[in-house]
């Protein structure tokens, strides 16, 4: 961390990583503010990771705690994996936002407040007895009190706008301050304003003025004694875009459909946090994507089975409660051995739980939530960008092995974002598989000796007319069969088919120590926190490795070997130990869990601390 001096007076401090959280009322445009800062930081070349924090209510009363909306961005000159445990800077637009977020700001952290919003009325709304700005309760932070509304209004003076309209632009004033504070160009945002409001010159001008006024405020006033520089990161060369998990999921399946040469069918029923996938895909009709909003999750699943039966790349998406409803129909897909992918964007349960919050509670439901022996492959993306790759992988497994595949995302991945190196289409795997056409050789339940996949004969194929269904099938012929030995054989065959996929997936690789004291084993969205914690532990010279399973059923063939190379195994999960149970049952390894079920992602520090305790034998 060096300190140089810039042309104008203020010293510049160079930092490796900064985390900013913008918080305000739902109406204050915090999401937009955060996104603009993100674009700018990304374009500048920082590595970034962001996470929005919407209120559960649609529109809670203005100024109320439930109405608080936030956006956190972490940007860095090195490779980062999470939006940061705690903000270094908190920008609070009103008392509610301050109250809801201040606890996360570490002592010494910077707090920028819009003093204009700290009226008696607003303080009362969130039952602040006295104003935190005056009662000394913020003494352990470096507080910057700025009358943002007033200053902004003054800047827009003379424009033909209502006071309400004027007030709506104050977020750009705050954004301007942050741009100045972190030496960012206003260009990208100014361009955005032009594109967005070009046709409404007054609004455009207002936003421009607000932004510039904020920037100028930083430059001219004395209140900031320094400002900061976070140099560009050294990301692998290529073209990048910022992407959320839900976006990457949608794109991934469109890509899979193109590479499979089959139209994508998406049958779904809206549910938080999966709905955006439906919204996104319904915009890709020119790719031949057929989206169907069903009357419920059962119908969504049924329609997906129908589309798969017809030869499409069939997909359904939901969240936990919806997955529960689909379970009977999923079993029909297992019995009929038709290829499709079931996306579950996990949220906090049980039951309705906390719909907007994240959790990893559906792993065992995915594996076992159906009557009888019903094996299904399960994959789980580790980061927002990874959602793209695993969408292709899930499709590959479904089509190659003629099986429904579970794809476990979660609320954190869904709306979290990170830079994604855009792949070129020809680098994507081809997912082409042939339909059955030959009358001579076709048998509905004859299997490929390699994959054990049955033949896929779609309606419309002359001469291959046949019947399938949910009653047990006779091996080869596929006729209804109540024969005891046949049922046993078919049960083992369905199981062997899924287990066999282990020969067709990459080995589990380990980051950091390849053997030694402690292996931290994770799955899904905990990747970032675990990896960061392990990097820190490595830097501290600890003998720690990180392995992250993206294929959970079947597990990579070398999983057992990897586990046995370490003295201790820690499995952090946002549940009460679901992967942990599988690992212990399968490998009889005395792995221990670390469980947080708070509807929030792990903090790096939590995992770091737990690992230290274990290493210290505590």
């Amino acid at each position, binding site marked *: 961390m060096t300190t140089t001096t810039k042309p104008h007076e203020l010293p510049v401090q160079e930092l490796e990583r900064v985390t900013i959280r913008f918080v305000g009322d739902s109406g204050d445009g915090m999401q937009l503010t955060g996104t603009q800062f993100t674009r700018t930081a990304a374009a500048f070349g920082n590595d970034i990771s962001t996470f929005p924090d919407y209120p559960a209510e649609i529109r809670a009363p203005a100024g109320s705690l439930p109405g608080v909306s936030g956006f956190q961005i972490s940007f860095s000159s090195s490779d980062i994996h999470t939006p940061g445990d705690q903000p270094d800077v908190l920008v609070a637009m009103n008392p509610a936002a301050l109250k809801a977020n201040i606890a996360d700001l570490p002592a010494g952290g910077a707090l920028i407040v819009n003093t204009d919003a700290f009226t008696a009325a607003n303080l009362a709304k969130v039952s602040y007895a006295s104003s935190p700005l005056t009662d000394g309760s913020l003494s352990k932070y470096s507080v910057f009190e700025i009358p943002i509304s007033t200053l902004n209004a003054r800047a827009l003076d003379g424009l033909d706008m209502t006071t309400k309209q004027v007030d709506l632009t104050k977020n750009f004033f705050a954004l301007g301050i942050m741009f100045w504070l972190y030496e960012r160009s206003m260009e990208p945002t100014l361009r955005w304003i032009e594109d967005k409001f070009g046709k409404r010159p007054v609004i455009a001008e207002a936003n421009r003025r607000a932004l510039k006024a904020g920037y100028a405020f930083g430059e001219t006033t004395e209140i900031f004694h320094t400002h900061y520089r976070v140099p560009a990161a050294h990301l692998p060369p290529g073209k990048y875009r910022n992407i959320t998990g839900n976006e990457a999921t949608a*794109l991934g399946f469109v890509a899979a459909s193109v590479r499979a040469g089959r139209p994508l069918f998406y049958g779904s029923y809206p549910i938080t946090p999966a709905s955006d996938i439906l919204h996104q895909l319904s915009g890709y009709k020119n790719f031949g994507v057929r989206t169907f909003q069903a009357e419920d999750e059962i119908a969504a699943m049924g329609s997906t089975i129908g589309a798969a*039966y017809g030869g499409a790349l069939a997909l359904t998406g939901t969240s936990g409660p919806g997955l529960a409803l689909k379970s009977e129909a999923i079993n029909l897909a297992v019995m009929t051995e038709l290829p499709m992918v079931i996306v579950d964007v996990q949220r906090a349960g049980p039951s309705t739980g906390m719909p907007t919050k994240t959790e990893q509670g559906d792993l065992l439901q995915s594996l076992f939530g159906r009557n009888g022996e019903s094996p299904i492959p399960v994959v789980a993306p580790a980061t927002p960008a990874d959602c793209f790759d695993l969408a292709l992988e899930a499709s590959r497994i479904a089509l190659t092995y003629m099986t429904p595949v579970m794809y476990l995302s979660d609320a954190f991945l869904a709306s979290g974002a990170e830079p994604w190196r855009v792949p070129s289409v020809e680098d994507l795997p081809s997912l082409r598989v042939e339909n059955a056409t030959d009358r001579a050789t076709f048998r509905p339940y004859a299997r490929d000796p390699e994959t054990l996949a049955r033949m896929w004969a779609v309606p419309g194929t002359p001469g291959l007319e046949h019947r399938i269904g949910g009653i047990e099938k006779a091996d080869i012929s596929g006729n209804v069969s109540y024969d005891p030995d046949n049922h046993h054989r078919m049960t083992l065959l369905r199981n062997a088919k899924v287990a066999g996929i282990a020969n067709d997936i990459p080995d589990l690789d380990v980051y950091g120590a390849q053997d030694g004291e402690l292996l931290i084993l994770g799955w899904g969205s905990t990747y970032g926190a675990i990896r960061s914690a392990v990097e820190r532990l490595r830097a501290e010279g600890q003998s720690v490795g990180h392995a992250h399973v993206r294929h959970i059923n079947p597990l990579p063939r070398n999983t057992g070997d990897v586990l046995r190379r370490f003295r201790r195994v820690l499995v952090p999960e946002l549940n009460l130990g679901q992967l942990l149970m599988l690992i212990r049952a399968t490998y009889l390894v005395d792995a221990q869990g670390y469980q947080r079920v708070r509807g929030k992602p792990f903090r790096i520090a939590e995992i770091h601390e737990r690992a230290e305790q274990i290493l210290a034998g505590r």
Partner: protein
Amino acid sequence: MTELTQVPLSPENEAVIKLTRKDFASDQEVRWCPGCGDYSILAQTQKTMPEFGVPKENIVFISGIGCSGRLPYYMNTYGFHSIHGRAPTIATGLKASRPELMVWVITGDGDALSIGGNHLLHAMRKNVDIKVVMHNNRIYGLTKGQASPTSEIGKVTKSSPTGTIDQPVMPLSIAIAAEATFVARSVDTHTEHLAKTFERAGFHHGSAFVEVLQNCNIFNDGAWRDFTDREFREDRMLVLEHGKPMVFGKDRDKGIRLRGLHPEVVQLGDGITEDDLLVHDETAPDPYLAYMLSRMWWPEYPVPVGVLRNIERPTHDRLMSDQIASEIARRGPGDLEKLLNSGETWVVE
């Protein structure tokens, strides 16, 4: 043929037109109780198929669970014996992604109206182009005799030893209220009428709902006998014919007349002529006549059979395909490379 132009002529299509009933019988041994009404429904279904001139590989039968659900095994077409109540959802997904296929849904009174009622409703209102044949035996057959949503109130069954307490639903009233574009009723034993009704349904564009009064001689024998029996069916059933006055009776001497909003049975003669009678109009934009007919029941009225309602509305698959076509026209066929690179991007050297 014009009725089903979206069906592509398959290689052996010249042959198709020459298909016969036998071509539609599969090699599977039929497994219903001797005497079951389902045999006749199967026979008429197989007999009707050649009429459509659709290659048999382009025909799919999808059923739920129930005795009726076995029917697809016996059709030498593509077939899917799915799960209880969900056949319409599978048919919807199939039809949406493969508009050129002719899709039939075979269901029972429990499968369609108890566990599956909501799916039926939504498939109908969306005018999904599927032909739904509901075998109505007013009982749960496969599970050995519990009450169904069409069982008459007070019926003693395994699950209602002291009689059911539930008002039954009128399947055709539900279908009409669900905005179905084709609604008809026939009887298992009235074979010609049954075949004709299937044919009408098959040629209809959009959701067709056909209720077949079926006898379960094991668990609900004679459920419909009162008005379907040969001896008195002319007097107790009203055979609907589009554009014709509503006349019935062995001697064609009775009719239905409208008094205000109330249909009444009248004796023709002394002053009352056919001109005084209601004239059937299956294509009426208003569903009022169809709804009225859906509720007329023996002994107060003769039970109407035939097509109650038959209107045109764009089908679900057609509308979906049109939107895709117009999006392609508007934005050009999807370019994956472009899509992946869309939005805000930046380059790292």
